[in-house]
């Protein structure tokens, strides 16, 4: 028997983080995605232990102030794109600016300085990644996806997909199917 599992990556990460913190027995609050407030004072040894345990699970404590901003922006973008957005059209810049205490211009500058990629490009990358997921895992049609992600038309979605991935949505789907069969046959 072969099962295909769909991951809710955000939930898995959050659960794993909670699990590890519970194991350590520290008192904490998980605020927004990727942000933990430790409700007690940790000594140096405990801090090291926390860092070590998180590192071993593929998590890393971010120290650099600009990296923290970038991580927050990324989390907001993921949140915005993956919420059921059919109800309202929210402009990314308004959304980010509304949630962080900096101007969008400043945030966007920090983002490209740290990642060498513009914030706008990153939004497209996240969107495309979601489109890929919806195409393959939920088997939605392009029309459904365009509607769900607020694209003005299917043509616009296809064009953006092709421009950024080099594949048309249909050839991407074909390739993924072949890849899947390939791994299943091995």
């Amino acid at each position, binding site marked *: 028997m072969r099962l295909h599992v769909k991951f809710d990556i955000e939930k898995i990460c959050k659960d794993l983080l909670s699990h590890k913190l519970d194991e350590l027995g520290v008192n904490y609050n998980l605020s927004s995605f990727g942000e933990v407030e430790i409700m007690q004072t940790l000594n140096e040894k405990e801090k090291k232990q926390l860092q070590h345990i998180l590192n071993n699970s593929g998590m890393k404590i971010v120290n650099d102030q600009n*990296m923290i901003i970038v991580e927050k922006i990324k989390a907001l973008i993921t949140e915005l794109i993956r919420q059921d957005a059919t109800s309202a059209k929210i402009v990314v810049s308004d959304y980010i600016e509304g949630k962080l205490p900096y101007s969008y211009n400043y945030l966007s500058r920090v983002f490209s300085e740290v990642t060498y990629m513009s914030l706008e490009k*990153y939004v497209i990358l996240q969107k495309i990644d979601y489109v890929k997921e919806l195409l393959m895992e939920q088997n939605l049609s392009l029309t459904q996806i365009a509607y769900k992600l607020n694209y003005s038309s299917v043509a616009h979605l296809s064009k953006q997909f092709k421009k950024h991935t080099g594949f048309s949505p249909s050839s991407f789907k074909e390739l993924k199917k072949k890849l899947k069969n390939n791994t299943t046959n091995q």
Partner: protein
Amino acid sequence: MAFEKLNIVLADDDDDDREIFKLAISQIGVNTSLKMFKNGVELTEYLRQEDTILPNILFLDLNMPAMDGFECLREIKKNPGLGPITVIIYSTSSSEKDIEKTFLEGANIYINKPSDYETLKTVLKKVLTLDWQYQTSILNRDNFLFRF
């Protein structure tokens, strides 16, 4: 420390192409260290050495004497320890058959070697930043497939 140093390896038998690649990588302003090999045998020997720091990104030419790109790709994908390496095919071939074959063998990105230098720089910068985003963001690595 924002953008940690990227280890890049290129295997390409063409001397000029290697020189141009090296120059382009050095000029895109991303912190990288580059190692280059002339063919697949040299490359796989390097990857097998115990003290080798595995590259983050491997650029593979397809047409090379003594073990071509397809064979290298198969070797690399057979070895689970080399799994995290992002494999980028870097070839003059624009044959759809070749392109599909490399993706089916596990390549992440296919670059059709650009004929002018500025385009090459743009494409290289694009794939390096893409790779970094795939390492640091919530993106599905199973869908890490692009062609330029």
